[in-house]
């Protein structure tokens, strides 16, 4: 028989004090500041902003410090904080064609107008540990400069559009569904799927995208364009009667070009997958565009091969790492009563089994 008891308060309080001490680590080592995390662990900050679905580098850096570098815990903290804030409205859709690009590459067109700009990339590094970084106070190499391309850099897929070789998206200004306001309903519109994927767990989206490359819902993706940079965010202010820029955000955008053989109504042409994520987060943006394209099989009249990446419910219901970790980790919390009933049941079954087998009792 189980009797409800109290008595965890002191243990919990002491556990949290121990957590605080462990978070600080060796006090002989200088404490990490939030600004240091924001500036020097920027890709971790970006991931927390993308999956926390809140663009604020200082808050993301604070969350990483508090979570001791556990990024999913940091995402959880950001999501929780976000729920305490009022929402003032929705921005106008950002214009990624006007992005101030710090990186912009195409795997399909070598001579794209605007050129291939590598930017601050890990690509072409040798992936050898650099022990010079272990020594502090070293001199930084000074980056070279060159005259920037004047004017906006056009999207590379727009060149394919001219020949009608690639599908075009229908522009619109309808209010998109918002999964933070209404529970997700399936089947989901593409706008809702993109919202769920852009805030989804990077590891989960990466694995799904990889599975499509290995043949589970293959879509033959090329990276038509990958760009990283800042865009202005504009908000309509009702009191003023016009839109003003309220700031700017760094984004990573990926457009894939995929094969499509055509249908009864459409000539053979290329189709597109789309990824757009907060911060410099290119692995996530590429993965997002592959998963977006795989989920479009029905709309494009493709075969359902039963691949996980084609299964909208499977993808959308398991992409959120805060939901996932909440359900997963709750099973470590006290389940004494549940387990007690299971124990009783097994004992009863065993007793019944023993009673029906008198020879075993002899």
């Amino acid at each position, binding site marked *: 028989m189980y009797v409800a008891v109290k008595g965890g308060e002191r243990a919990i309080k002491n556990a949290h004090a121990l957590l605080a001490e462990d978070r600080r680590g060796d006090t002989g080592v200088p404490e990490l500041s939030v600004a240091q995390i924001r500036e020097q662990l920027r890709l971790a900050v970006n991931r927390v902003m993308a999956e926390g679905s809140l663009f604020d580098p200082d808050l993301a850096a604070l969350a990483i410090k508090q979570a001791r570098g556990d990024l999913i815990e940091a995402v959880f903290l950001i999501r929780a904080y976000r729920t305490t804030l009022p929402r003032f409205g929705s921005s106008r*859709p950002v214009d990624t064609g006007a992005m101030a690009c710090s990186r912009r590459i195409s795997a399909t067109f070598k001579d794209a107008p605007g050129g291939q700009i590598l930017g601050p990339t890990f690509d072409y590094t040798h992936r050898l540990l650099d022990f010079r970084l272990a020594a502090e106070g070293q001199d930084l190499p000074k980056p070279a400069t060159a005259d920037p391309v004047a004017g906006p850099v056009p999207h590379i897929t727009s060149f394919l559009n001219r020949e009608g070789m690639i599908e075009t998206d229908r522009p619109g200004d309808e209010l998109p569904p918002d999964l933070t306001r209404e529970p997700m309903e399936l089947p989901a519109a593409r706008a809702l799927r993109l919202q769920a994927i852009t805030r989804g767990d990077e590891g989960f989206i990466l694995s799904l995208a990889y599975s499509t490359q290995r043949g589970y819902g293959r879509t033959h993706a090329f990276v038509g364009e990958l760009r990283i940079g800042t865009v202005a965010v504009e908000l309509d202010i009702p009191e003023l009667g016009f839109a003003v820029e309220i700031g700017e955000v760094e984004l990573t955008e990926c457009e894939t070009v995929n094969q499509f053989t055509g249908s009864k109504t459409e000539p053979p042409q290329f189709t597109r997958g789309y990824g757009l994520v907060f911060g410099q987060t290119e692995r996530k943006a590429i993965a997002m565009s592959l998963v977006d394209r795989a989920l479009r099989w029905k709309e494009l009249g493709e075969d359902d091969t039963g691949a996980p990446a084609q299964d909208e419910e499977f993808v959308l219901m398991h992409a959120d790492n805060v939901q996932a970790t909440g359900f997963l980790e709750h099973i470590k919390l006290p389940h004494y009563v549940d387990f007690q009933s299971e124990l009783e049941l097994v004992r009863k079954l065993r007793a019944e089994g023993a009673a029906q087998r008198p020879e075993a009792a002899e």
Partner: protein
Amino acid sequence: MTASVAPTDPEDRRIWMGVLARARPERLAELMPAEPDENPVILRQPEIGTVMVQGRIGASGGPFNLGEMTVTRCTLRLQSGVVGHAHVQGRSKDHARRAALVDALMQTDRAAQLRRDVLEPLAQEEADRRRARAEKAAATKVEFFTLVRGEDR
């Protein structure tokens, strides 16, 4: 006494509000250290909230919700009745209040002085930052060249 009201071009106002919103809070405070003795009435206390940022499907299609950003807003009124307004990125209430005050004063005869002392330095520093970033990115542009092939000899 406070300044009189000057007619304001909405496009001009849109631009300065953008400059104020994107300014770093510390820098705006540096350029405007002492509050001018306007004694404004705060119509809406600085308030921290979010704005849902939208993207477009495939960069040119219908909108979708990308995620939120933090924004602080503030509205105030000068003694002369001119209303100043601010929506600024981030969570600095001081930033929002200062931006709203500059917005209000820019609609008065103090506009020229504020443009010279606050807005132009902010806009110039922002342009310099952007240019420096663009120049460093441009230096990473790939210059393809074709190797001489056998048949070209």
